[in-house]
């Protein structure tokens, strides 16, 4: 038995010399399909946060590794991908991007007790729940009421016709349910609601015609980027001067590239201040441009914040403390532009900024 001791010693030495196991995080988003622009920007934000943290030495000497999965805008795929990510040993999942995908993926993460931090989802269905979901964005109620107030008071809209995509109903219905009573309470009127399910076969001309029949003084698109572009193009052909408003979901950096002049003058809300000139934000933008050769969007900023929050919580967590407890207990966290502090349900607040597309760029509303 004398040969066992040297073997054990050698084994311990090798273990001691081995590189520490990386901390693994997952990303889940719709990287193919009509919302892939938002998901790709979010993935880039998460990657940037991780790469910068790794350059800075990781967490307690451990590097961070990101595993990316595409939910293809399918509930089944989202649930399966979340289960696979959980089973692969990730500490947290950043994503998904849309509320419907969050609702589809959450049970698998919940079952595996893996924290899921969605950078963007706002549906009221996800608010106030004691689960493993943490939300970086504000709630639909906040945005919808802000929209109602802004457009009633600032842009002066009184009669709004709404086109709503029911494919992401978890978000859109929630948004509508909050907006309509708020706008009506102010004295506004929703002249009509036209729903459609985002797909190739939708006739956006028909949808637009239906909207215009109610003779509104503005159109509100509760839909994603591609569908808003298609709706805007149809609307501009029929009523070039009619004010167009889109929900925050459509506030993609690709909006102009996809919509061209059709989206000129479109009002949206963004969850970050693109006019921010602070050093931290400027460094982020510069690093993003260099790394991805594109402009960061709101999903990039939110995903960067979501990832930073997770990494900070992991760094601050005490021995034996789960990530969920660490996220709840070790805040507040420094986001790029806002301080993030979760309530006991993993919800937080986030300030919105109204912008308008002007000459191919989003410009803040002064």
């Amino acid at each position: 038995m004398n040969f066992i001791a040297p073997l054990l010693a050698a084994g311990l030495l090798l273990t001691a010399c081995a590189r520490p196991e990386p901390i693994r995080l997952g990303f889940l988003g719709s990287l193919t399909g009509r919302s892939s622009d938002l998901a790709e920007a979010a993935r880039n934000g998460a990657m940037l946060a991780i790469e910068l943290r790794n350059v800075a030495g990781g967490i307690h000497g451990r590097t961070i590794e990101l595993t990316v999965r595409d939910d293809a805008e399918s509930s089944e795929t989202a649930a399966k991908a979340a289960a696979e990510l959980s089973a692969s040993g990730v500490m947290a999942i950043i994503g998904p991007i849309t509320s419907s995908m969050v609702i589809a993926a959450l049970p698998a993460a919940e079952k595996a007790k893996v924290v899921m931090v969605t950078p963007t989802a706002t549906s009221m269905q996800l608010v106030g729940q004691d689960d493993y979901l943490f939300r970086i964005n504000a709630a639909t109620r906040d945005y919808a009421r802000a929209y109602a107030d802004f457009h009633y008071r600032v842009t002066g809209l009184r009669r709004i016709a709404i086109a709503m995509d029911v494919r992401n109903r978890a978000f859109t219905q929630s948004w509508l349910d909050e907006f309509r009573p708020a706008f009506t309470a102010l004295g506004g009127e929703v002249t009509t609601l036209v729903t459609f399910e985002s797909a190739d076969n939708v006739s956006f001309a028909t949808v637009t015609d239906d909207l215009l029949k109610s003779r509104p003084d503005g159109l509100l698109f509760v839909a994603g980027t591609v569908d808003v572009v298609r709706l805007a193009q149809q609307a501009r052909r029929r009523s070039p001067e009619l004010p167009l408003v889109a929900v925050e979901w459509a506030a993609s950096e690709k909006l102009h590239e996809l919509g061209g002049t059709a989206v000129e003058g479109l009002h949206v809300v963004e969850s970050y201040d693109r006019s921010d000139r602070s050093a931290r934000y400027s460094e982020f933008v510069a690093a993003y441009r260099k790394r991805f050769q594109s402009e960061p969007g709101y999903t990039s900023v939110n995903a960067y914040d979501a990832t930073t929050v997770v990494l900070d919580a992991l760094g601050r967590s005490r021995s034996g403390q789960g990530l969920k407890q660490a996220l709840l207990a070790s805040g507040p966290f420094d986001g790029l532009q806002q301080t993030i502090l979760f309530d006991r349900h993993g919800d937080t607040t986030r300030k919105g900024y109204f912008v308008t597309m002007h000459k191919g760029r989003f410009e803040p509303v002064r």
Partner: protein
Amino acid sequence: MKRAREWRLRTVLMVLLALGAVATLTALLLVGGALLLWQQPKIDQNNVAQVRREAAQLADRMEILLGGLQRQMEVAAALLARAPHEARGALFEALTGAGQPFDAVYLAGRDGIVEAVSLRPQSSMHLGELVGSDLSANRLYRAAAQRKTPVWSDKFLSALSGDVAVGIAVPMGNGVLIGELPLTELLGALQIAIRDPRLSVWIIDRRGELVAETGSEGKLGPVNLLGVPVVQAALAGDLLPNNITIGGEDFYPAVAQSTLLDWFFLVRMPAGLNDPDVRANTLLVVGGLASSLLIGMLLSPVVAGWMSQPIRAITARARQIAAGQTFEGWPRGPISELNALSVDLETMANHLRDRQDQFRAVFNASPLPMAVVDAAGGNVMVDINEAWGLQFGRSRELTVGRSAGDLRLSSHASEFAAASHDALQTGERIEVWLLDEDRSPLLCEFAARPVAIEGKALAIWVIRDITAKKQTEELLRANNVLLEGVTRAQREFILDTDPRRGFDRILALLLETTASEYGFIGEVLLEPDGTPYLKTHAITNIAWSDETKDWFEKNAPTGLEFRRLKSLFGAVMTTRQTVIADDPAHDHRRGGVPPGHPPLLKFLGIPFFHGDKMIGMVGLANRAGGYDEAVTRSLEPILATCSSLVLAYSLVRERKLGEEKLRNALAEKEVLLKEVYHRVKNNLQVVSSLLGLQSRRVVDSSAKQLLDDGANRVKSMALVHEQLYRVGNLSSIDLREYLKQLTDNLSNVNRPLSTRVMLRLHAEPVTTGVESAIPLGLVVNELVSNAYRHAYAADAPSGSIVVRLSGSPEGQVCLEVRDDGCGLPTGFALEKLNSLGLQLVETLAQQLRGTLTWDTNAEGTRFLLRFGVEAHPTYLQRS
């Protein structure tokens, strides 16, 4: 000292062989590993060169494949530019028709507005809605419009289809013709271009986005690859590393850039064990080595067994010798040392066997049963001698190897095990009950001594059967107990005032001797018509209720009477035979028991006789094993005693009856006698009264005197009879009481003189018969009367007459009558007197067989009468 651990020879050989095999294979592995390390740089170099070659060729092939599509678009643009407006539609449709790779082809005019669109026939999009869309901001459109050359796009989100795709934009006049190629189409082309199946390819666009990928999905997923060092090195034109790690796996990398497409082709070939060929070869070698090792391991026991076989054969023989088995010959083999060992062991075994035979002869010669026992191993029989076999009726073969428990040496195995253990520890002899082959109990004297045989701690048991001796002692003791009990019962019967205690003791003895629960001893009596019935002299109190308890306590002391002949005890009385009932509940002679009566499970009734007369019976109940003739016989001495006691009891009873009758007759006689005395006294009283009346009528003083004297004499006799019937004792008189009444009477009669001459009595308590009392009373009457009459003058002022009576224990009575009067005349002599009184005194003294003396002077006279009475406590005693 710590003993070194032992191993079996075969095991040691097997381990050594196995270790040899492992060492050999380890050496092979080390050598192989060293060779591999030496060759590794060359292998790496070759693989890197190969993967770079493949990457360059792949880029070329993809350029060829996609370049064809580009040329197709260029030709189409040229045709469309020249075609009449009406012919454009058909041409457009042809671009997305069957077999074409494009999902959509559209023409954007100078201002970026879509002028014409062609979709796949199966597309469900509303074509008309797409025309007019503004693509002026579209990156691909702008690049082609600016460069005026065909441009391939990065991966992009199509505003028209909403899908992620790549596109080729070809300038067409002032506009741009754009074809959208689905990523699946690109992947198909890529798979065609790859020749080596080991290769995995990432096509990366200018922004680092993954356009297409072959091989299994990367662990990292669809990440942006611009940050991967190898891509950065390729972009910077730096030398690529020979080896990269992606997702924890090693690859040989190569990057080729397509100038046509402006994409990078990152080609990876698995390195080390990730390479399927390397993995297969490694598995083959490792499998081969493992198989060799396995075969070596499997063969090592066989070879070890073959090598150790001669030793094992010798060991087996030695073990057989140790176990006392016989066999023919010791093994011989090809190894001379082992043969010599075999011969030596054979010689040693023969010596051992001779000594063993000697010991066995001595062992078997012992008359006492002996056994060698493994006491620590559960009392397993190691050996027994012949005496043991005879004692317990089992042969040595049937005994050895089995435990005392298995052999059922004792009916109480655990107690016997504990007792034998104690005997072994203490060295003392003990008595134990063992069982022979027929399960008959044997009382044995048991001794155990520790012995060490062949290094093993064993015990020798020696036993001696003392059953017969013990039985004799027990019988003697039982008889002594019985005899003592019977003797005691008889003595108590004789001495005790209550003879029933003797019966109680006999009954207790019967219950104890027979181990019965309850029983009785009864006398058989006869009704006037001759019917027998039972009267108990002793019975167990089995009262089962308050009512029966009261009844028992009230009647048992005088004996309970049972008259029901239709019963088990009745059968004894009617048949005069012993009755044994093993199942009383179903016995035809049964009479049943009242509700609540303790269960009657067994019954024995035995009659006992005086001559031919049945005078009693004994009843016993509930002996555990029932009753039989042997029990009945054992009770014969007690039954004889019962018979004697019942007979004696009946005689005593008869004697007491006689005494009672006599007492009654005596009482009747006493009553009669009292009546007689009463009447005599009354008659004498009447006579005395008549004489007194007569005297009062007589004038003549002498006559009067005579009558008074007569009355006094009669009175004195009447007082005796009165005393007799009053005191209750009809045959004796208390003289002191009698004389007191008599002197009181005399004092009364002699008034008024007696008021001055005092008559005093000093009498001791003397008792005598009536035959002495009457004469004595007459003597006192005469002497006192004479003193009053003659010793004092009629007017004498004072005087004293004293009557004194005393008695001695010898029966002598002394009566003294003294006065202080004038004294007797000179020359006084009784015989000369003419006085009837004094003559009467003389006569009475003679009647009493006494002596009368007197003396007299001027100061008075004293008479002394001494007489004897029979020395009988009743007749003479001091109270």
